[in-house]
């Protein structure tokens, strides 16, 4: 089960490491897709990636529908 879903909008503006649990997931949207996180367990909004023409591993790309599914499964969402 996903605990907290972190919705990150800006590059290098990550939540304090202490805040993130192992079962949390980070979802990169908007300009956050410009810098990939060093943490595991992240995905990036495919449309935001394609729009910016940046290189993100294919397996990390997800659709808006997929993000909505993650949000449904998560206990809560925090925009950071």
């Amino acid at each position, binding site marked *: 089960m996903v605990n907290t879903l972190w919705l990150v909008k800006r590059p290098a503006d990550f939540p304090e490491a202490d805040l993130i649990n192992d079962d949390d997931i980070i979802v990169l949207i*908007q300009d956050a897709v410009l810098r990939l996180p060093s943490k595991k367990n992240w995905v990036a909004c495919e449309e935001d990636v394609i729009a910016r023409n940046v290189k993100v591993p294919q397996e990390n790309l997800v659709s808006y529908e997929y993000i909505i599914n993650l949000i449904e499964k998560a206990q809560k969402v925090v925009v950071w």
Partner: protein
Amino acid sequence: MKLLFIMVSNPYSNDFNTLIKMSQASINQGHDTAIFFMGNGLYSIVREEIKNLAENGVKIYYCAHNAEQRKIKPDSWAESSSMYGLAKLIKEYEKVIILD
């Protein structure tokens, strides 16, 4: 799922695009979806894309105080509300996403 967006962000921002795409995806999957507009978020309520979301079933609320302050008159498909109204929505909706 009941999903609530709080839109506070500036007009013509990346948050506007995120708001449109995410709430459309949410309603497409049959979730009960709402947007609450406050602060500078109010400026976006007059855009065509929001009207389309409303027609597709997204519930639209706004802070009447911020609308008046900014001289914005939302259409009738948007429901006038307040910070207390927002608090009650937060009770009711399972997930809350703030864009500011």
